[in-house]
């Protein structure tokens, strides 16, 4: 638990953890300090100057996004001077923004609209600037409309932080524009269409391509849910209207490194209402599949199962919900009385290797990736790839243990490209040599492992880390779990389900 600091914001007593900046601290107390370029979770850059606040004892106003809380601070967020500067900046931005609130899709959730309302700005008192930038809508996912851009830089920083690094500013000052390399359309850049930029944009410059005329933001019901398309189980917010799914956003808390969904999760919901979706049970009659009623289907299946008895077998996908898996197990063993029940997880893991520890990824300061190849580009556990890259940018360290070099090696602190089992043995020995105490069995098992120089360095990092987390493929899980006898937490990461040992809401453990 970090030290709590007492301070006063606008006369209100607030307690905030040490190291928090003033914008987050004010949020704890329910006070909103206007900001456009600030992204929770990343360092403040002070570009928009909207978050200027006056602090008692300081001569000139300071920006809240980079100022950390100090004991006894007294902050005033609404003095005349700072309100004047804020009004000035919003006025300037409005002079180069198409005043399109009537049909704009961002109406209702637009930061600029909200601030213009707060400062009673109907129109800009400065000369109108029109840029006429071309809209990039050739790809079916994300639409880029640079005319609406307020140059806050959030999209650039989000994309850089998670490793995809596709967007950058071109030019300087008023005429600058957010572009991809060589100003190519998005599908010709390295974009993975994850849409993190769409979630970050405060105005209508980045949005989903099919968003036009699908309803206004306040008409949507927002439901928190989990994406089931791969083992990551990313938190999502599903926006529905009249019972139809309209759009999906990343649902993790603002500022959490886990706020990420890939293109499948974000744009793949059109399969819900696809024409070729089977919506009624079908029975094969005379070689042809014909639609039938649930009653008929259930009766037919029940009769077949009764006849088969202990010769029946159940195979399910590994992505089945744990509660459903338990029900299926009971159905198989207690009702049909067969021992044959399995999931596709058995292709790469067994019971021992799939039940693993849980870990809080956003507070880990050292990641050890064993035999895993997460990649946002190939869409293999992309959320884990994004979380690790973001944490590394925030100061965490990464050790990769793999027999071939995965793409994430480029941000690793130490790369150990060798046989994973041997490497883990060697790591255990190095840790015990450096003083971590383990049990006798482990000590004798790794007695004759050799410790290379790189492995020593890795062991030192491991010992210095406060919250090391080992993410391992199921095949290597048991070996990784041995390390946790000395220190740390290991999580087994199957590809289809339960890929994040996550403390809290979705604590998933395989029971079959």
């Amino acid at each position: 638990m970090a030290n709590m600091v007492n301070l006063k914001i606008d006369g209100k007593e607030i307690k905030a953890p040490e190291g928090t900046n003033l914008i987050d601290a004010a949020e704890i107390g329910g006070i909103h300090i206007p900001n456009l370029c600030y992204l929770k979770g990343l360092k403040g850059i002070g570009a928009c100057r909207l978050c200027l606040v006056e602090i008692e004892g300081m001569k000139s106003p300071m920006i809240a996004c980079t100022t950390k809380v100090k004991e006894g601070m007294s902050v005033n967020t609404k003095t005349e001077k700072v309100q004047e500067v804020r009004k000035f900046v919003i006025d300037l931005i409005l002079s180069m923004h198409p005043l399109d609130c009537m049909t704009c899709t961002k109406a209702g959730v637009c930061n600029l609209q909200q601030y213009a309302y707060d400062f009673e700005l109907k129109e800009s008192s400065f000369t109108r600037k029109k840029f006429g930038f071309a809209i990039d809508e050739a790809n079916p996912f994300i639409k880029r409309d640079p005319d609406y851009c307020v140059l806050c830089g959030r999209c650039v920083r989000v994309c850089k932080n998670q490793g995809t690094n596709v967007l950058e500013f071109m030019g300087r000052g008023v005429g600058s524009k957010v572009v991809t390399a060589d100003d190519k359309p998005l599908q010709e850049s390295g974009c993975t269409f994850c849409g993190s930029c769409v979630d970050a944009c405060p105005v209508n410059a980045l949005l989903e391509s099919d968003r036009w005329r699908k309803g206004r933001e306040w008409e949507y019901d927002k439901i928190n849910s989990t994406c089931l398309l791969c083992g990551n189980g990313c938190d999502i917010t599903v926006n529905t209207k009249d019972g139809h799914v309209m759009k999906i956003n990343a649902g993790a808390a603002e500022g959490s490194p886990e706020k990420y969904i890939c293109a499948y999760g974000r744009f793949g919901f059109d399969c819900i209402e696809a024409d070729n979706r089977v919506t009624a049970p079908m029975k094969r009659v005379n070689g042809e599949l014909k639609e039938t009623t649930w009653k008929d289907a259930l009766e037919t299946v029940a009769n077949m199962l009764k006849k088969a008895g202990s010769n029946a077998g159940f195979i399910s996908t590994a992505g089945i919900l744990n509660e459903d898996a338990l029900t299926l197990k009971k159905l198989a063993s207690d009702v049909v009385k067969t021992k044959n029940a399995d999931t596709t997880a058995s292709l790469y893991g067994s019971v021992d290797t799939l039940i693993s520890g849980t870990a809080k990824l956003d507070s880990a300061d050292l990641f050890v990736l064993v035999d895993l190849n997460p990649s946002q580009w190939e869409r293999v556990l992309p959320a884990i790839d994004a979380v690790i890259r973001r944490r590394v940018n925030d100061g965490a360290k990464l050790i990769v243990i793999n027999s071939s070099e995965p793409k994430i090696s480029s941000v690793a602190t130490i790369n150990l490209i060798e046989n994973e089992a041997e490497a883990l043995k060697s790591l255990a020995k190095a840790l015990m040599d450096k003083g971590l105490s383990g049990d006798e069995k482990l000590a004798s098992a790794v007695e004759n492992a050799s410790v290379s120089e790189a492995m020593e360095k890795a062991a030192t990092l491991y010992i210095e880390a406060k919250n090391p987390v080992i993410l391992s493929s199921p095949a290597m899980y048991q070996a990784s779990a041995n390390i946790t006898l000395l220190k740390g937490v290991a999580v087994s990461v199957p590809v289809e389900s339960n890929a994040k040992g996550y403390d809290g809401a979705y604590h998933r453990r395989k029971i079959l």
Partner: protein
Amino acid sequence: MTEAKELKVEDIKKSAEEKGCPVQKALYYVTEFISGPMCGRCFPCALGTYEAKIRLRNIVEGRGTAADLSAVKRIAEDMLEGSLCMKGKNTAKFILEWMGTGVYEEHIEGRCPSRECAAFIEYRIVPEKCIMCGLCKDACKHGAVLGEKKKSYKSGYLPFEIRQKRCVKCGDCLPVCPTDAIVIVDVKAKTVQTVQTV
């Protein structure tokens, strides 16, 4: 292709001081600042100087209104408070230096006290003083002087006069006239004031 060397802020300030008219000073400073040292990251400075340039141009070119003046004042004051770095604040200070002296207001009323802003002045040749030597015509690079040199054997001559459409008010003709016959005259003002050139 040689790249134009980026001017430093000190150089810009020095060159700006060389101009006679304060409004021209401010306009020059802001223009060079935008093309060179400005980093363009923070909004008050990046967006503000761009807008200030447009407004200052309006004032210099004779289209200035009171709204332009208050806009420039507001931009400078808020840039002073809100800019990220000293460069922006110094730009704001430079603009504000001359704002209180009434120079801007005179420009809006249609007069440039330093007689530098091209939109407010005209160069004219005083016929009584002109001796028809033709030196001004030779000095003018823009072909703005009409007239024939007096030849003793000729009678009837084209008097020297300045074609206002061609004159860019560069000032090259002023020093060469031996009788100081070229004067700068205020235009767009209610009363025409004739002033001797130095």
